[in-house]
């Protein structure tokens, strides 16, 4: 039954994403696009953290690498698609170069190295004016124009983002379900056993990190034309922490976790606007409570909730969780 339901739900979910911006203000379309973009970045980090079990604190810098690469190329007249591919390639390679030495040593060292790297990236972006525009940043990046489909308005841009998101998610689905992806999972659950079964732990972890970084680059390639302005502050360490929180809050290791986590950070402030300055405090407290009672994140919480109900009540349990968001 489950197997037959999944495609239907996929279609329903997609349909919801398609109708979501209709009749909404420009602001909402913009926010929704930004949600999907952060979900892509979080999806990448989810591979590193949720499947390979390594903390990375450099996802914002990979978004930055992608954003600057795309901005520089598109400003120089290169079309968006090759710019995006270049952005992903650069992020992937930097990820490899950064992860290779860090993963030699076990423990939290990838976290330390990525933390240092993110701050270094910020300094370089700010100081190298000739390339990055320094603290003023770069602006006026064109939005992609695919002959009949021009993304200058926010609605087409949203659909463009959605299309990229769907492709990225499908690729990620493939990666996670491939023998490769199973190796990731095996790695997280039991690294020693995985190794004894002939999995090259280090190589798999490194690949997970580099692919996750490339997803960061992809998100950057989308932010560049969405905001049409980038400056170093948007890619500082705090942003990396923000994305890490998205992944964990959504549910690290769950495929749709990042989508929820990004929603918590990007969309929830809309509902909590009446709390004014207290929003961040509420959010932070909620994260702490979540970590105490359900460290596996919102989806984990949903599962725990479901187990309390009989199968007949399954749907209601899910609905309840959704409305709690």
């Amino acid at each position, binding site marked *: 039954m489950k197997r037959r339901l999944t495609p239907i739900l996929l279609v329903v979910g997609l349909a919801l994403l398609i109708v979501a911006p209709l009749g909404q203000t420009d602001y909402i379309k913009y926010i929704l696009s930004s949600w999907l973009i952060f979900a892509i970045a979080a999806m990448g980090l989810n591979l590193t953290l949720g499947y390979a079990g390594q903390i990375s604190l450099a996802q914002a810098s990979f978004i930055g690498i992608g954003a600057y690469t795309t901005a520089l190329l598109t400003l120089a007249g290169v079309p968006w698609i090759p710019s995006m591919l270049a952005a992903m390639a650069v992020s992937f390679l930097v990820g490899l170069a950064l992860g290779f030495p860090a993963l030699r040593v076990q423990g939290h060292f990838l976290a330390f*190295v990525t*933390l*240092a790297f993110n701050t*270094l990236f910020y300094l370089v972006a700010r100081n190298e004016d000739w390339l990055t525009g320094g603290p003023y940043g770069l602006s006026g990046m064109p939005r992609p124009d695919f002959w009949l489909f021009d993304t200058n308005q926010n609605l087409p841009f949203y659909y463009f983002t959605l299309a990229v998101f769907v492709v990225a998610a499908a690729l990620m689905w493939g990666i996670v379900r491939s023998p490769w992806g199973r190796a990731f999972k095996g790695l997280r659950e039991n690294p020693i056993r995985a190794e004894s079964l002939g999995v090259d732990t280090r190589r798999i972890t490194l690949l997970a990190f580099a692919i996750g970084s490339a997803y960061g680059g992809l998100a950057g390639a989308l932010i560049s034309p969405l905001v049409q302005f980038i400056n170093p502050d948007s890619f500082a360490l705090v942003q990396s922490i923000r994305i890490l929180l998205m992944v964990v809050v959504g549910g690290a290791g769950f495929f749709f976790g990042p989508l929820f986590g990004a929603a918590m950070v990007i969309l929830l402030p809309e509902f909590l606007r009446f709390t004014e300055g207290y929003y961040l405090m509420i959010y932070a407290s909620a994260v702490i409570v979540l970590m105490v009672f359900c460290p596996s994140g919102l989806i984990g919480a949903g599962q725990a909730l479901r187990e309390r109900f009989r199968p007949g009540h399954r749907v209601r349990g899910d609905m309840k969780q959704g409305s709690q968001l």
Partner: protein
Amino acid sequence: MSQFLQVFLSGLSTGSIYALAAIGFTLLWQAAQTVNFAQGEFVMLPAFFVLIGIHWLHLPLWLSLIFGLIVAVIVLGLLFKKVVVEPMLPNGGLPLIIATMALSILLKEGTKQFYGAEAQPFPNIFPQTTMTLDGAVISVQDIMNLVVSLGVVVGLTLFLNRTRTGRCMQATAQNPEVAEILGVNVKRMVLYTFLVNAALAALASFLISPIYLAKFSNGETLGLVAFIAAIVGGFNQIRGALVGGLLIGVLDNLTATYVTTEYRAALPLVMLIVIILWRPQGLLGTSEGRQV
């Protein structure tokens, strides 16, 4: 030469404050295996407790400092341990790290909401006297910063090695199971570590705030520096954290003076990456075992 001496000595003074924060960092790492991402906020906050003592409770400065220290130990030591860390221990390392990140946002935003976004002046604890040494100007504050942090390291090391409680704390850090079997009250020892960390953070706060001022966002910079100092010096050694802190204070100034001001913040980061690659256990760290 006088310029070198000037920036070197000032760097030592600032670095010794970084060291205090870094020591607390390593203590928590050893006792609870957690990276406390709120450590910077732990240094930011006690200054505000003192300001509350001065401006709201109208206490004299010395009493406000004691008040600040006690509140810091209760809130950042006891409550942090009981309310945040303890319930999370069964969940493993990652949730706790994430929780400290959230806690850092909470403390920062909370301070801003309840005390305001503006920087606040903080009274001088030491007289503003300065002396000149071969062209370099040193203040009493500079000397006291160094004296206090060296004193803390010596005192803490003696405490851990010479007292029964200290040795129990070490045993707990090295192997909680065995310590438990040997009759050590592991929970209590871990709690002590948290209290010591809070006290060190408060001390760092009192020393840095007369110059750095009290502001809700101060923890962002301080936390990062303490973090780097702890890793560079060696995560499992108290004197490692001291060396790490001093090194960063001095190198930051030397880089800014002689090499580049734009990239002054980069050197400690590069150093961190190099050290992780070359000596993952840190400059003074030992690869096996933990001291506390």
